[in-house]
């Protein structure tokens, strides 16, 4: 279903519960009333077109409007991507961590297995943090600077040098590694972790990992299909200047 601005946001959430964290990133929290998408966005000063495009892309991957999304400023895109990172690091990852710790402390016989799981997740977390950190401290500032320089027609020598140094194209590859470990973890839980009595927490953990996985895939898709081509375009116009 294509989501449109006259729809009530509450109906949208009834229709697709997975959108709760997405609207959250735009500063909309549950208890938002009975307004339409349009009125809620206006109240919150949110760019309606951008909001709807992201919502649709997340709701149904086939509704990702590449050209339209690329028409938004890199700043707007990056602002959204940063909020997504924050959602992972400040919420999802700690939640999952807590869950694993809880599982380890509850069981006496399977303690060792959970400790292994904990260690593996710790390693995964550090990898994710490193990846996000690199994007936030190197890639994003560079992209924003690039966009501003081209807009103001004030391209500096050092910027050209930097654009030659690393091209955006190379950074796509890291996403696969981040996704890979999560799939490994899911397989370990589904297939290989010795069964325990407390299936409730294990079920919860699997659900959390699946939600995180979907979110990460969508996040990487927006970066790979929208941000990367946009930056390539900017880099091209830089060399043409």
């Amino acid at each position, binding site marked *: 279903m294509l989501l449109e601005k006259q729809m009530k946001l509450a109906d949208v959430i009834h229709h697709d519960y997975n959108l709760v964290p997405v609207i959250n990133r735009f500063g909309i929290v549950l208890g938002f009333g009975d307004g339409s998408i349009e009125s809620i966005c206006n109240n919150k000063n949110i760019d309606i077109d951008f909001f709807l495009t992201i919502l649709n892309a997340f709701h149904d*991957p*086939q509704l990702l409007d590449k050209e339209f999304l690329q028409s938004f400023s890199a700043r707007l895109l990056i602002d959204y991507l940063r909020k997504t990172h924050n959602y992972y690091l400040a919420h999802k990852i700690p939640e999952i961590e807590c869950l694993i710790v809880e599982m380890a402390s509850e069981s006496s016989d399977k303690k*060792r*297995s959970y400790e*292994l*799981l904990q*260690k*593996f997740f710790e*390693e*995964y977390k550090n990898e994710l943090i490193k990846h996000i950190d690199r994007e936030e401290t190197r890639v994003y500032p560079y992209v924003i600077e690039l966009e501003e320089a081209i807009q103001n027609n004030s391209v500096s020598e050092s910027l050209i040098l930097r654009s030659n140094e690393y091209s955006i*194209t190379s950074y*796509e*590859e890291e996403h*696969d590694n981040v996704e*890979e*470990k999560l*799939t*490994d*973890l899911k*397989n*370990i839980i589904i*297939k*290989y*972790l*010795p069964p325990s009595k407390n299936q409730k927490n294990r079920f919860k953990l699997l659900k959390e990992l699946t939600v995180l996985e979907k979110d990460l895939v969508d996040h990487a898709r927006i970066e*790979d*299909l929208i941000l*990367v081509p946009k930056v390539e375009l900017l880099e091209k116009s830089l060399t043409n200047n």
Partner: protein
Amino acid sequence: MGKTKKVVVVSDAFLLTAGIENLILELSGMLVDHVFDGSEKRLSEKIISKKPEFVIIDPECIKEILIPILRELSEESDIIVIGIVTKVTSQNIVSRFSHTLDKENNKFQLIECLQKIVGNQSDPLEDNEPTISKRETEILQNLALGLTNQEVADKLFLSVHTVMTHRKKITRKLGIKSISGLTVYALLNNIVDIREVERSV
């Protein structure tokens, strides 16, 4: 029921993609795992990383890069590539696919055609739970202890290429790709001991 066979679709055209997904649903034990846009970068690499049994490609959406992509996919002996063609698709393109589905066929014909393609393939893993062989266990053990591919090769008097082939097989059987994931598996199954692993780190 055997193991689920993964299908990856490469198509930009929604009607076509939806049709393929609908078709795959008709066959038991098959599942569309991922749909890629023809414009994706490093497409063949991404397809391979999904470890599909079948790749269904609409040649229309990857016109210029069709030949390199098919070449790279053909190096993966486990992947069967199926092209979506019509009566007007040039013979030059049709002949590059080992199997084709005719866009203009009806659903029944397509199912029959697809069943033939799927049936032709023998899958040794189908009935039994995949277990890793003695050799693979040995390699897994050494990888879990932190040895590199080269070090494992030297220790077991194998070529690096052979070690990598075993590794791919292990990953395919277990569904675990990363070294740390494999280490967890090895520990859970007592293939290595936690003290050995800690000593080697």
